[in-house]
Every structure is written in C-alpha cells, then in structure tokens.
C-alpha cells in the first residue's frame, strides 16, 4: 500500500460482558484506510463488523470494552482520547451512517433542525447561517425541494429519503472518514442503487476515506477499491476488489463468493456455507474460528498464533492452508 493511511487500526480486540459470559467479539483486527479510498468490510451477521465501526467511533455499548490494540485517526489516538475530545472528533473528522435510516433520526424533530444541531456543534458559522447551510446539505444529497423538506419529520419521509438525510447529516461538516454501516440494507433494490451511487460520488468528489460495512459482497464489489473479509471477529482476508474475486485465498472467502447470488445463478447453484458462527463466549475457541466449518481443516490449522500473511500485492490472508 503506497497511500498514507488516514485510519490505522492495529490489533484491536473488543469484549462484551454479558449475563451468560464474556463475548470475544473482535480479536486482533487490523486495517488501514487511506484518503480517497473506499474500503469494504464484509462478513456474515455477527462477524463483528458493526462492533468495529462502533469501536472506531467510541460508541460501544455499555457492556463492551476494548481489551487490546489501537485506533489512530489522522495521527490522533482515538482509544486514549478523552470523551470530550472524542465528541469534537465525531461528526467533524469521522462520521457514521446507520443501518435503519428512519430510526436513526429523532422522530419528533424536524430533519433540517437535526442537521443544524450537528452544524451548530462543529461548524464555525453564525446562527443565522444555520438554516441555509442545512438546506444546502439537503440539496447536496439530491433531496428534491430541500427548503420544504427541512421542515419534514422522519415519519413523513421514505426510507430512501431518510437515508439521504442521514448522509447529509454525516457529511455536513465534511469529515475525512465516513463509516457507512449497512447503509442500504433496509431499502428496496432501486433505492439501494441510487444511495450507493450517491455515496460513491460524494466519497470520490471529496477524497473522503470511506469504510463501507456490508454483508452484501456484490454491493461491495461494485463500489469498493479494497475489500476486507471478516469472520467471527477476525479479519481473515484483505485484498483489492478485483483480486479478491478472481483469486480468493481464504476458503471462507471462496464460499462467501459462491454463496452470494449475483442474479445469474439459479437458486440451486447457490452453495450454502455449512455450520454457523461459533459461540464467541467459549473459552476454548480455536485460533482459526472457521476451522470447524472448513472442509480444508487439518491439524496444522489448530496451531496457535495465526496472523495475516501476504500472498500477493496488497493481498493478505489469515489461513494456514490458503487456496
């Protein structure tokens, strides 16, 4: 990787204390995102993608704690920062858009005013300018009749419009990193396409580093420069998009690609990945958490200290028996 990294996550581990045990949600997760780069993070539900996003933003659930690793954004140590410093950074340097757009908005507050709240907090503009800037933000995400929409409440807007508002709010202060956590999951297919187009256009236009989290591999393929594959709290493969699809190295990646319908296969041709995610509360988890679902599993796979190793230009994989 020749571009300098804006976001540098190094060996991050996150745990959750629950009534039934400690869930090791993330273990040794490392990734980098450079300015202007769109990186996709893909994996099944429960692979830890959202946890990672929340960890970067510092908005982990009460029961969660970072047990190891570091997250550095533009030279600033996010994990060591005070809550007050983090509040300055959130919304201004790094922003997030969420999965269900309507519930991510305050239901009893006009959307324009919600954008103003963010502007008021971070942007150095006078109160008089706030409404105009809010309307500008709405128009930048192609919301029709933005001046009127300013006064709308979330329940009056469609899912697609709500997500545009979400994007407008996140980008209002022009952050250098945008984290999009399953931004199109709750939307219909047509709307998905338009939202993704919008995101890509904005990301490229502003040279914004973007982290796109999704379980939809083909969506990631269309938009991302690089893709990181996660499984059960581990990063198991990381490669430029084209390379990942041409030559997946990790057995899980291959199965994931095979399992994701691209609209051309018949239903029968879609191969299922056997088994389910391991119980992350277990104390005897194997080094490779895919081991018991993998048909290439041998004794060598159970050797400890499994790390990402390079298998090509910008291509890393965490596997003892890569394809």
């Amino acid at each position, binding site marked *: 990787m020749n571009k300098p990294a804006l976001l540098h996550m190094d060996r991050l581990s996150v745990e959750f204390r629950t009534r039934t045990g400690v869930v090791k949600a993330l273990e040794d997760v490392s990734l980098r995102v450079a300015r202007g780069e769109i990186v996709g993070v893909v994996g099944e539900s429960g692979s830890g993608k959202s946890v990672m996003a929340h960890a970067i*933003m510092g*908005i982990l659930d*009460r029961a969660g704690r970072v047990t190891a690793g570091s997250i550095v954004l533009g030279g600033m140590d996010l994990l060591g920062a005070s809550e007050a410093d*983090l*509040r*300055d*950074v*959130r*919304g*201004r340097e790094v*922003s*997030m858009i*969420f999965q*269900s757009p309507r*519930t*991510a*908005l*305050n*239901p*009893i*507050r006009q959307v324009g005013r919600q954008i103003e*709240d*963010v502007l008021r*907090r*971070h942007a150095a503009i006078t109160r008089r300018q706030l409404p105009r800037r809010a309307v500008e933000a709405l128009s930048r995400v192609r919301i029709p009749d933005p001046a009127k929409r300013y006064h709308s*409440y979330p*329940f009056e807007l469609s899912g697609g419009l709500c997500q545009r508002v*979400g994007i407008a*709010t*996140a980008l209002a202060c022009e952050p250098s990193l945008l984290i999009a956590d399953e931004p199109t999951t709750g939307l219909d297919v047509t709307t998905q396409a338009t939202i993704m187009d919008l995101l890509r256009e904005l990301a490229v236009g502003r040279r914004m580093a973007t982290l796109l989290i999704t379980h939809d591999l083909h969506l990631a393929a269309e938009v991302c420069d690089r893709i990181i594959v996660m499984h059960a709290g581990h990063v198991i493969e990381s490669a430029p998009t084209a390379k990942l699809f041409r030559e997946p190295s990790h057995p899980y990646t291959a199965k994931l690609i095979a399992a994701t319908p691209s609209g051309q296969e018949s239903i029968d041709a879609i191969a299922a990945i056997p088994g389910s995610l391991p119980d992350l509360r277990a104390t005897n988890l194997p080094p490779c958490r895919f081991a018991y679902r993998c048909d290439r599993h041998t004794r060598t796979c159970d050797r400890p200290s499994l790390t990402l190793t390079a298998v090509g230009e910008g291509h890393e994989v965490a596997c003892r028996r890569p394809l």
Partner: protein
Amino acid sequence: MSPSGKIALVGRRLVHAVPSIVGVVVVTFLLTRALPGDPAVYFAGVAADEESIAEIRSQLGLDRGLLEQFGFYVRDLLHGDLGHSLNTGRPVLEEIAARLPASLELTLFALLFALGIAVPLGVLAAVRQDSWIDHLCRLVVTAGVSLPTFFTGLLLIYVFYYLLGWAPSPLGRLDLLYVDPPAVTGLYTVDSLLDGDLETFRAALAQLILPAITLGLFVLAPIARMTRASMLEALGSEFVTTARAHGLGRGTVLLTYAFRNALLPLLTTLGMVFSFMLGANVLVERVFSWPGIGSFAVDALVASDYAAVQGFVLVMAVLFVLLNLFIDILYTLTDPRVRLDK
C-alpha cells in the same frame, strides 16, 4: 401539520370525552337510586317529617319511572342544580365552588413538588445507571407505592410540628391571625402575592407545605418510575446513538434528544397520577383539616348528606375527565406524529 389539521384532532379529542361524561352522569345517577329503601327519606334527611319527605319525593321525581327520573336529573344538572346540602342548606354546587380553590391550590403545589423531585430523580437514575441515585430512585419507587397517604401525613405532622416545631399547626389554610387575601384566583398564595401582602403569603405557604408534601409524596413514586423507564428507553434508542455519533454535546443529547422523547409517555402517565391524586386529596384534607371539597365530602358522608356526596362524586369525576382531556390535547399538540388517520 397544518393548524387546521391540529384543530381537527383536538376536536376529535373533545368528542371522545363526551361518552365519558355521559357515563359519569349515568353512574352518579344510578348510585343514589341504588340506596336501600326509599331514596326520598335519605335526601330529606333524618329530621324530616312526612310532608317534607313527600315534597322531596315529588321534587326529585322519585315517584316517577326511572327514565323520567334520569331526565329530571339531567335537566337539573344542566341548570347547575346539584341539590341542597343538608348540613348547611346551601346549594351543593355553591358549596363545592366555594371550596374548590382550596383543593386546587393543594393539588397544584403537590404536583409541582412531586414533579420537581420525581422527574430529575428519574432522569438522573436513567443517566447514571447502577449509581447510588439509581438505587435511591428504585427505593423511592418501591417504598412510595406502599405509603398510606393518611399515615405519612400524620408522621410528617408528628415530626415537623410536634417534635421539631418547624411547621405551623395543621388546622387549615391560614392561621387565625391572618385575614384571607382578597379573592382573585382563590389560591391564597397567589392572591396574597397579587395583593402585595408578603406576610400573608408566607403564612399561607407555611400552612400549605406539609399537606402538599404529603400529597406529593404519594404520587412521587409512579412519576419517578415512569420517568426513569421512558428515559432509559429513549437513551437506548438508535437516534440517541446517532446523536452521540455526531458528537453532539451531552446536554443536547440528554435534553433535546432523549428527554423530549421521554416526556411523551410521561405525559400519558399523568392521567393515572391524577386519578390517585384526586382520591388522596380527600385523605390529606381530612388529616390537615384543609377546607377543600375533600373534607366537605367527608363531612357529608358522616352526616349522611347524600345530595352533597353525589354532587362531590360528580364534580370530581367531571374534573377528572376534563384533566384527562387536557392531557390528551396537550399530547396531540406536542407529538408531531399524531395524525388524523390514526
């Protein structure tokens, strides 16, 4: 939503209140007709002779059919005629109207006290989960619903009047030394302030403190519980997480985002709170000899003054329906999501 849309919704709410009023009128009517024996005897009183009993009977139409009687009853109500009190001979409505401000003053201060303590307590308990304030809140809630109002009142009198001597003698609204302020609202505290009479104001306030706290303590628990619960829900919701993710200040997240949303369920709880309050009012007035409609009712009960009791029940119920209506309307106006097609 357009103003005319909101007016339509408010109109809807008003219409919904009508069946409640009808129900209340019917029930209060049936209550007195359910008296064992001859109702006329009860209404005429113990000291009445045959003639006055007969007179009462024809006056109230008790010799007619039930439906006709109901007709008379409603007609009388519409004329503001709730009968006459046996004790004083004055019209019941007049008696109640004279005493209503005293009860209103008590209830108002009690509510302010309760809200002033319960809401911050509930909010803090939700914000600082598992802290000492959270445990205090839970203790208050559990203990609070177990307190018999009349007992707490007596305890407070014992501690603050007898033992400590801080509170004045619990004998009504104003010590005999003072003159009632000129009546504008009927609330002694407000009226004395309007009159510029600080001495009377302080005296009236002093008499008000213990009964208001007693009544307020009773409703403290449900309000605190509801505030904590709805605050917790608001704080756990996605839009609050989003607000935090945008780096919004703690105050903004807490008040503009979480609290405003938590207020709405709290508002609906107030209806139930009023039900408790109007009932507990009677007990508190009895303990503190507060000359409101509650003690009027108790005196009427003791004297078997049925017209007065019936009038009391009717007025309290109508008041309750109106209070609920008010809350309903307030909710309709403040929640932008309330729409006509609901």
